[in-house]
């Protein structure tokens, strides 16, 4: 797909990066039935981790990026392991806390992170909107393919089973804690990957990308697009990334709009946009004219 100008490319790249995060987050929220309110923290850690290694320690981005992603995966594993043994929504609380700590540290440790003003990050070996566009597009297709494979595999069934009836899943020999942890670590790693790519793409990062508001934005994208639907996650990311670009004049009301959208989604289409449209489409086809 060829796009008309640089600005369009830029928006498309942003959509792609957010969609990668949302496809991962949807594995956790939509399939494993666990909520993370701190995914922007993982995004930020990926961005700053790779950015700091590259800018302050001179690592080539091709090394700093996987190192940052692996570091975030280990952190998610350490946080998730004790918490996901408990039943219920304790992960939401823990990730909320973690996200707030991350954004505070990024904003205050200004000697390393540049503080609230952010820091410059070295570019990748390729530059230019067009090259980035193709890289991100490929990454998104790959992520969707991997996620769909996972969902259709025995592990995906195990995830959906423990979401559907955890006691029965355990009685079928499914170790709920292990599967939730795998989904959590995978989704955190994808967020970190998207964060690191964002940093190297834009050449500059600020702590706002790791903020609680951004975490809520990500969850809203997943819920609006449709939980337990990979394409829903992509659509949610696309709509909620482009809308604020189009309505730039209403920047001050972003949080209000986000809250309203979340409420309206829950009231009028609790399953989200894509699953609701899917069943409407099937119902219309089945109905005799």
């Amino acid at each position, binding site marked *: 797909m060829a796009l008309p100008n640089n600005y369009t490319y830029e928006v498309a790249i942003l959509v792609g990066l957010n969609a990668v995060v949302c496809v991962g987050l949807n594995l956790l929220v939509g399939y494993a039935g666990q909520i993370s309110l701190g995914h922007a923290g993982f995004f930020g850690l990926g961005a700053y981790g790779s950015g700091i290694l590259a800018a302050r320690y001179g690592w080539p981005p091709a090394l700093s990026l996987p190192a940052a992603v692996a570091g975030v995966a280990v952190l998610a594993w350490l946080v998730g392991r004790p918490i996901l043994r408990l039943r219920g929504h304790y992960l939401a609380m823990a990730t909320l806390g973690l996200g707030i700590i991350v954004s505070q540290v990024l904003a205050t440790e200004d000697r390393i992170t540049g503080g609230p003003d952010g820091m410059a990050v070295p570019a990748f070996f390729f530059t230019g909107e067009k090259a980035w566009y193709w890289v991100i597009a490929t990454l998104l297709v790959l992520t969707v393919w991997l996620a769909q494979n*996972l969902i259709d*595999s*025995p592990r995906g069934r195990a995830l959906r*089973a423990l979401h559907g009836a955890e*006691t029965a*899943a355990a*009685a*079928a020999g499914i*170790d709920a804690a292990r599967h939730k942890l795998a989904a959590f670590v*995978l989704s955190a790693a994808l967020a970190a990957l998207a964060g690191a790519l964002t940093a190297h793409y834009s050449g500059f990062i600020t702590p706002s990308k790791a903020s609680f508001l951004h975490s809520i934005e990500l969850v809203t994208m997943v819920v609006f697009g449709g939980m337990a639907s990979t394409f829903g996650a992509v659509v949610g990311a696309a709509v909620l990334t482009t809308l604020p670009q189009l309505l730039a004049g209403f920047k001050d009301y972003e949080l209000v709009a986000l809250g309203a959208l979340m409420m309206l989604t829950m009231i009028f289409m609790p399953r989200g946009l894509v699953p609701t449209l899917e069943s409407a489409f099937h119902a219309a086809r089945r109905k005799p004219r």
Partner: protein
Amino acid sequence: MLRAASLAKRFGGVRAVHDVTLEIAAGAVHSIIGPNGAGKTTLLNLLSGIERPDLGEIHFDGAALTGEPPHRFAAAGIGRTFQNLQIFFNMSALENVMAGAWLHQACGLAAALLRPPGLARAEQRAREEAQVLLEFVGLARWTHAASDAMPYGALKRLEIARALAARPRLLLLDEPAAGLNPTEARELDGLIRRIAARGVTVVLVEHNMKLVMELSQRVLVLHEGRKLAEGEPRQVSADPAVLEAYLGAEHA
């Protein structure tokens, strides 16, 4: 096969199960009966690892399972169904049974993400095996139905098919006849016989006395969390202590 010694479980001040010792021999249908609130479901939860006993020990084929999480009980070969349906309502009937076979199709995260040809073949086999099980319990026509669109009696049998998918050596059935009409109950009788004929040892918790008396080789009577009697069905049904617990003192 299964040995439980001095099991005890309290909920607050209530002794749900108190000092119950039991031994289940391989290759028979065993029933656990008792009035409402006797502790039957709690006992089944202890035997399947869903609840942890406060006291006592559980051994299955010589392996100690006491205090282990429920998925280890399943891996050891103990399957179960639930009195209050625990269906994966977010899946089709076929997928429910396939999910029940997790222990025999566990795959690594990398394989799940990359879907190598071997996994695709294994999935096809799993689908066929699940179809066979759905036929076995008489649900062939519901194979591709969304489970939340199935009637109650069919869901009861779906639970049994799902439990069988794990290929248990011991199957615990928690009130499989509850809520079924007489025709369905008769079909269930036949189904349990066919399960036992496959070499699966069955433990049946049931209120339907006709079913219990016809099917079981051994009956254990629970009353107020304690073991009241144990033996062959005829022997137990003539026991004065059992009659008193069920019907009140004047009938004893």
